[in-house]
């Protein structure tokens, strides 16, 4: 159990500066599930869980674009209110996580206006800097990989501080190992050299294999599972 925390938390806590907010993008495909994503985020989340059902979110027809934009606006307003309430009562700003499961449903709900969806994402991003909360976005990589102009996913990958990709094992199915996950973490290193600071963007890649259990996700290095 402790090993799980160490591996993932070590990887993810690297960017835990006082500014708080991180953006985590989790990409999955049909063979592996986003349950991993939810589990990862839940490990660090506070007790309160506000759930906004995106399956039943209703947006009017394609013709009425303004109203549909309104659908996303109201969703954002709900999220913002929830975050404000949580961070004011909790007292600890860094413990709020916004989890979007998943972004392709938001696209369907918004009836395709991907501009509106990316605006929505940018607005959610502002919450990370204003309130110091973490934004976790679940997306399906295989949906976008066959598109010619996968704008949305490229934008998300660009904005992400941490990119987590889950894939099935290359060799097929296994009951012990549910898949492999690769983490790509972008972080700024600041080096103080007397009169000036040098900032550089570095990346760190980690590859684990994982097994999903009822309460958590167990990550381990390939070959080390006993």
């Amino acid at each position: 159990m402790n090993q799980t925390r160490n591996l993932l938390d070590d990887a993810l806590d690297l960017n835990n500066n006082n500014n708080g907010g991180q953006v985590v993008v989790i990409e999955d495909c049909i063979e592996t599930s986003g349950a991993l994503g939810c589990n990862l985020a839940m490990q660090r989340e506070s007790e309160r869980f506000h759930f906004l059902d995106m399956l039943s979110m209703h947006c009017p027809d394609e013709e009425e674009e303004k109203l549909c934009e309104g659908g996303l606006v109201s969703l954002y307003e709900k999220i913002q209110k929830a975050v404000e309430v949580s961070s004011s009562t909790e007292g600890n700003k860094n413990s709020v996580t916004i989890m979007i499961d998943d972004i392709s449903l938001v696209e369907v709900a918004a009836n395709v206006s991907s501009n509106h969806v990316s605006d929505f994402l940018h607005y959610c991003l502002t919450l990370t800097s204003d309130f110091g909360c973490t934004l976790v976005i679940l997306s399906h990589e295989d949906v976008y990989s066959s598109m010619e102009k996968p704008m949305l996913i490229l934008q998300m990958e660009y904005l992400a501080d941490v990119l987590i990709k889950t894939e099935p094992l290359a060799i097929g199915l296994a009951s012990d190992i549910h898949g492999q996950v690769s983490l790509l973490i972008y972080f700024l290193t600041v080096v103080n050299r007397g009169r000036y600071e040098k900032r550089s963007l570095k990346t760190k890649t980690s590859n684990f294999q994982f097994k999903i259990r009822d309460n958590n996700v167990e990550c381990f290095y390939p070959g080390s599972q006993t």
Partner: protein
Amino acid sequence: MAATKTRTSSFSRNPSLLNSSHTSPGLKYGPNGSIFVSSGIPDLDKILGGGFPLGSLVMIMEDAEAPHHMLLLRNFMAQGLVHSQPLLYASPASDPRGFLGTLPSPVLSKDDKLRAHDSEQEKGLRIAWQYKKYFGEQQPNLGAQQDCKHEYCSDFDLRKPLERHFLSGQQISCVSIQDLVNLTSFHEHCSAFLNQIQRNDDCTSCIGRIAIQSLCAPQCGYSNMDWGMLSFIRSLKSMIRSSNAVAVISFSPSLLLPAFCKRWQHLSDILLSVKAIQDEDKELAKLLTGYQDMVGLLNVHKVARANTQVPVILEATTFSIKLQKRRYLTLECLNQAPVDGASGTSYATSGSCSGSSKTGALDF
């Protein structure tokens, strides 16, 4: 946080959906408070760990070369009618009601269904080199004839049409989706159907089944509204999830853009696909046993995880569809033919034992 809790599962759910004293034969209770509904195919129920969970959306990917998805749909619908469950059937045909005449009839007597192996077992010593085939037959044969209504999953005789008394006096609704300009009216129809189910207090009829055949068929008026169809599926999924119903949708992946096809697949809770097997495929005949009896292949891509996050790992994901005695639909694991010692090619072609969905249908 999670480590300190002593519960074995993160989820605890009361099976309060139905009073346990009214155990309906159309339902089965599974682990983690899940409730299953039979698919109408005993082998498929076993593969999926009980059946279709209530509230799930099942998608079947069709093969344009063979109508095997109809077999699955027919059994699903017939099972619902045998249990007096309300049914909504939609298809691109101009008269979908006619399809009801092709539904199979349940087998009443178990004697008909005795497998041929039983008689073989008396023959004496046999070399069982594919021993997994024989595990299932160890179960004792139920001597008494059971009324099909009291069985969770009936065996259906595909050659015999469903008796009329199952079709009359039932809540059966047939909708043609051919001339629809958009899916709004059909969506309302589904919504009304599901609302009607919940109001019924009678236990046996409070489970609904929705079967939609070839949702993206080109003759339908809305078929080029990619996002419209996706939006319909999304809202159907949300309605089903909060109701006592199961929906089965079949569609042909070749008629959708790849990105949309993936989106449809992601929306499903259970994802199956059927593939045709060509007659006289010599390579396949060499590779598999029982090739001559196979009608097609069934692939299980995704299995719903009811109230748990632990994924279901199946021993095999590809099964052969066979018609026993040309009547009964069975699904069997693929068994590799014995390797011809002279040519070592079989080892090269056989990959892992269980199918990886990334590879083609023949690569199991």
